[in-house]
């Protein structure tokens, strides 16, 4: 695997396009995306592909461009250049079809603390055109998955940070998306809550074939078999299976590989 951005981007682009043509569309395809804030370039020709049923980690420090990329994929902003496709649907041109296939867990807490868990989930269901009866059935199902079915009528305010995160994951799954985006989902959680959430999302990949893009700056959340995209100062420096990324740099660990790639170090 190459760690040269140009070569890697080109190869990923070919990979993504061939998939679309063959009918097996990538869950997420980011092609040559650049984005500016005024004159500041936040993303520079970013390309990668997330396959259905894969666990991909977008690794980068704060300010690397992760949140910008997240905003572009969820269409808070439109891309300055390049394209983003979700199961072949262009996020800019066919946003409705793209977004209905996407589940999102934002970094900031987005549950309404004054409403109950069920009320929060019902609101999300309505935003996807799912009626009350169906919403209730689905909510029970997704809450069982995150072991919070007994807290359905609890006010969100009374939940712990880890429980809120699990409710947000349940909410993101409510409309049966086939790709799930999580923006630093473990920030601010204790060790056990972190481990629970990582394990749960991995089980979604393994058991339900959901594609996951997990952004983080925490190295220990990466397994050797995960796909890793190293983003630094708006550019993709490496992309591939974690073990290959490490091997390509000649470093013994991901931490040192990252340090070598970015000429910097990760915090704890």
């Amino acid at each position, binding site marked *: 695997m190459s760690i040269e951005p140009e070569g890697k981007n080109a190869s990923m682009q070919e990979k993504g396009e061939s998939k679309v043509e063959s009918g097996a569309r990538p869950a997420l395809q980011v092609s040559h995306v650049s984005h500016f*804030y*005024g004159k500041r370039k*936040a993303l520079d020709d970013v390309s990668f592909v997330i396959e259905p049923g894969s666990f991909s980690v977008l690794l980068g420090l704060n300010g690397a461009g992760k*949140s*910008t990329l*997240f*905003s572009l994929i*969820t*269409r*808070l*902003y*439109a891309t300055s250049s390049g394209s983003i496709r979700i199961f072949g649907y262009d996020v*800019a041109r066919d*946003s*409705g*079809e*793209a*977004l*209905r*296939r*996407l589940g*999102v867990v*934002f*970094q*900031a*807490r*987005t549950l*309404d603390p*004054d*409403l109950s868990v069920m*009320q929060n989930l*019902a*609101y*999300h*269901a*309505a*935003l*996807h*055109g*799912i*009626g*009350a009866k169906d919403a209730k*059935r*689905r909510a029970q*199902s*997704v809450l*069982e*998955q995150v072991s919070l079915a007994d807290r359905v009528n609890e006010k969100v305010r009374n939940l712990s940070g880890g429980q809120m995160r699990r409710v947000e994951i349940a909410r993101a*799954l409510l*409309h*049966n998306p*086939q790709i799930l985006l999580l923006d630093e989902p473990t920030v601010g959680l204790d060790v056990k809550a972190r481990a629970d959430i990582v394990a749960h999302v991995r089980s979604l990949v393994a*058991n*339900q074939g959901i594609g996951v893009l997990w952004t983080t700056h925490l190295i220990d959340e990466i397994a050797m078999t995960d796909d890793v995209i190293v983003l630094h100062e708006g550019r993709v420096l490496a992309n591939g299976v974690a073990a290959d990324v490490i091997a390509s740099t000649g470093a013994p660990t991901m931490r040192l590989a990252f340090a070598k790639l970015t000429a910097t170090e990760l915090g704890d």
Partner: protein
Amino acid sequence: MTAITSDQAAIKPRRGFTLGQYWICLSGIVWREALRFLHQRERFVSALVRPLVWLFIFAAGFRSVLGVSIIPPYETYILYPVYITPGLMAMIQLFNGMQSSLSMVYDRETGNMRTLLVSPFPRWFLLTSKLLAGTAVSILQVYAYLIIAYFWEITPPSPWGYLTVLPALALSGLMLGALGMLLSSLIKQLENFAGVMNFVIFPMFFASSALYPLWRVEEGSPWLATLCWINPFTHAVELIRFAFYEQITPISLAVVVGCTIVFLAGAIIAYDPSRGMLIRRGAPSE
């Protein structure tokens, strides 16, 4: 678990949404706004106390100072509290519209706005639904005020006035909510909202026909009267005033409808991912 995996239809959903799904989305947004309102009791109380302070204290104090001559739609001399009631009804909606925009800025900062905007429904529809939800809440507040005003003997000439004022309230609520929404897209941070209070709410309210008839203003300052006349809030007040008396003012109706369209279109453009202010403003809220 089984519901998720077995529901293959959702994996390959059919294109677009049905009218029924649009309705579900709209009612979900209105329902959440209503729930939030009910949970924020202090918001309800302050929404009610504000006009009542004006009615019971300000209007009572000026009752004998300000004489209001017979001007349409009134056919007799009226007491000052009766005159300012339509202005206070519009004031409730003005504050509510701005408060909704405050909540949108707050929502954007905490991420709730992003939850709304990541919905697959068209963005114009989501923003319009949010606007309708805020308007519905403002109408509830106005009727709560009218119930109290009733016991203060401020009533329309016939009970029908309570019904005929409803479309006027809906229109003025939409206009003021759309204005708030447009402003919310321009405000970068929550703290800047204090500026909106000073530079939008107070000038709009005082430079209008809410507290004094325009002929009175004109006596003191013709240019101020002109300013009041071109203020859309004046037309919201007059639309409500006439509708409360089962009448229509075509000019005010046209101004309110026109301003609603302009403000809402502006808000939709401002919240458009590719053209709007969000993109120019800088990095996303983290």
